């Protein structure tokens, strides 16, 4: 059984990573070194000007450790990929399914069911915990509309209809998202999703956490032998990890969004931890980024009972489990794909 391993984040500018025996050796500009045994790692995420030696990249690829390169502010730049490994039959089947609109729609519906149900749970939890501080009637309204979306999702035929339902559900959800931001006043107002660049602090946090999540989900898919680039709901586009984005849909609300909400509501990040550029883009500073990374890693260690397998596992391993279940479904060992329903 796979264990949940740690992710190494390198934010020190000018750092250079090389292979030293079985370790990742990080050399910083001031000459200090740190060593991390490869077997304790699931992934390496490099921010900004960080170099990695080719031999280390090769070694990490061989050990199924994902490597991503991001700008210093967390925008995705590139990832490295080793020789294509894993089961070619599984991947071929995945491509056949992706080419087949009906088949794709079956998987997409499961993923979206996970997304909508989990978004619903997030709203319900907010109402339960903070009924006095937020507009419960408005959230109740949104909950009813999400119920309606979920019901229509079951009847929806074809990918286009599914996408329509998804778009509506996302609209309903993000329209009331601001209600759940309880602290921070004007600085943390949220008026809808925007990105590239994010124009407010909440969007900045959301985009950053989604990037981290995409890295982890992609590496989970690669580990089970699926091609992260070929999605069912998200269509192929060069450089876009379509299947990773598909699988992420289940995790966005209860994993990423709640993480952002609790960081703000517990005042772990403050309005001062961001800079606004002339163009209106909002960037987080080093301290905030560190806080977010810390919270993200901590959240991955939270133990949950898997809704389908009824097994206790750290949340970080749930990405891997979902990827595994999807692979089993594609391979024909499972009749349906059971999404992760958060309770």
């Amino acid at each position, binding site marked *: 059984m796979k264990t949940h391993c740690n992710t190494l984040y390198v934010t020190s500018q000018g750092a250079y990573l090389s292979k*030293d025996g079985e370790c990742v050796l990080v050399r910083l500009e001031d000459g200090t070194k*740190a060593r991390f*045994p490869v077997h304790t790692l699931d992934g390496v995420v490099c921010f900004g000007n960080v170099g990695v030696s080719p031999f280390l990249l090769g070694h990490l690829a061989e050990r199924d450790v994902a490597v991503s390169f991001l700008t210093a502010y967390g925008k995705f730049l590139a990832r490295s990929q080793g020789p294509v490994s894993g089961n070619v039959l599984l991947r071929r089947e995945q491509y056949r399914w992706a080419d087949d609109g009906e088949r794709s729609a079956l998987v997409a519906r499961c993923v979206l069911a996970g997304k909508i149900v989990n978004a619903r749970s997030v709203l319900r939890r907010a109402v339960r915990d903070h009924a006095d501080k937020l507009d419960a009637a408005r959230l109740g309204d949104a909950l009813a509309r999400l119920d309606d979306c979920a019901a229509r999702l079951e009847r929806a035929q074809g990918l286009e209809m599914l996408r329509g339902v998804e778009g509506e559900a996302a609209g309903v959800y993000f329209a009331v998202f601001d209600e759940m931001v309880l602290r921070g006043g004007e600085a943390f107002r949220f008026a809808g999703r925007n990105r590239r660049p994010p124009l407010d602090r909440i969007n900045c946090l959301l985009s950053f956490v989604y990037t981290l999540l995409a890295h982890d989900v992609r590496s989970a898919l690669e580990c089970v032998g699926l091609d992260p680039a070929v999605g069912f709901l998200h269509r192929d586009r060069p450089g876009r990890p379509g299947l990773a984005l598909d699988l992420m849909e289940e995790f966005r609300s209860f994993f990423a969004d709640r993480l952002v909400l609790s960081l703000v509501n517990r005042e772990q990040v403050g309005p001062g931890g961001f800079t606004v550029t002339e163009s209106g883009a909002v960037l987080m500073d080093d301290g905030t980024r560190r806080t977010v990374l810390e919270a993200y*890693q901590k959240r991955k260690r939270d133990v949950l009972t898997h809704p389908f397998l009824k097994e206790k596992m750290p949340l970080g391993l749930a990405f891997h489990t979902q990827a595994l279940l999807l692979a089993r479904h594609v391979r024909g060992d499972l009749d349906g794909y059971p999404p992760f329903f958060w309770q």
Partner: protein
Amino acid sequence: MLVLVSYDVDFRDGTGARRLRRIARACQDYGQRVQYSLFECDVDPAQWTKLRGRLLEEIDKDKDSLRFYYLGSNWRRRLEHVGAKAGRDPDGLLLV
């Protein structure tokens, strides 16, 4: 599980330095150095078998000694650190 590996290598003949270096390298591949000849290795049973095999191959049983302390997977409550250079938690945030 966490295994604590400590060693003592005899230096009286000229070959000790080589053994010391190679033992340290094996430990470094699997864990972190917490004191001069003391390593904390967070390993699963398969990895531990490999590391142990490597260590036993390196030492000269007539002159050196190795000690393994098995702290299990619930090792956090069995460990207390006082003073400088606290090791990093292998499950904590790895940020450099």
